[in-house]
């Protein structure tokens, strides 16, 4: 059911913002946040800012991987 969710205020929207961005809300709670953001420029700006922050974190944190010598060592230990 969408479009018929109970309205939420700025404080409630902010409290659920990360769950919203992480896709962790139930469809009804997700719709409530979405509908608040559509009506509230301040919360939408906060949403955009936090979304940029999470994208920045993901990009920086995923850049690093196992160095080649570690990959070789693991393969050797596992299968030789």
């Amino acid at each position, binding site marked *: 059911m969408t479009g018929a969710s109970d309205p939420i205020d700025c404080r409630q929207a902010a409290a659920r913002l990360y769950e919203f961005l992480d896709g*962790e809300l139930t469809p009804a709670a997700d719709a409530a946040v979405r509908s608040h953001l559509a009506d509230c420029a301040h919360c939408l*700006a*906060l949403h955009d800012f936090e979304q940029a*922050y999470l994208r920045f*974190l993901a990009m*920086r944190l995923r850049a690093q991987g196992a160095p080649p010598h*570690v990959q070789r060592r*693991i393969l050797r230990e596992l299968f030789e």
Partner: protein
Amino acid sequence: LPHPAPPDREGFEREALVHLDAVYRMALRLSGSPADAEDLVQETMLKALRAWHRFERGTNAKAWLLTILRNTYINQVRATRHRAATVDVTEVEAFTVFRDIQDADPEGSFFAAIVDDEVVRAIDALPPDFREVLVLSDAEDLSYGEIATVIGAPVGTVKSRLFRARQLLQQRLLDYAVRAGYVRRRGR
């Protein structure tokens, strides 16, 4: 002694070994040193290979490996010293960064100016309980439910720790960016 013939080496390579980067990253964030991380990764992958027949097909192999990694790390730490006490009482005021710079930098472009080393340093300085949920979520993209399984805590705990971890890190990154002259706080 020769290893017992792995029952499904191909399956292990295809579904588990592809997550070696994730296991290494998490090992580095947990242990804080490349040498310790290497040993931790090796022990984790050996344990995982031996237990591979018990892995439940269709579930998240990355989450399974990270659970083994975390348990291995905790057992090591327990054997040598006590892990830093849980810090769930840490109070973090929410969304102060946005409040402070929304006029100067509403799109958060100051983040892009922060060098990788500084981001890693700030993450490694987080309390361990905060650091692990942040890495599991923001580096490894695990769901709240998967993180709860990895750390053996309720989903509600994951949710609140992740919220505070992200906010605390954001505040520290802003402090750094202000000191470095990348952005100015409102009214300062």
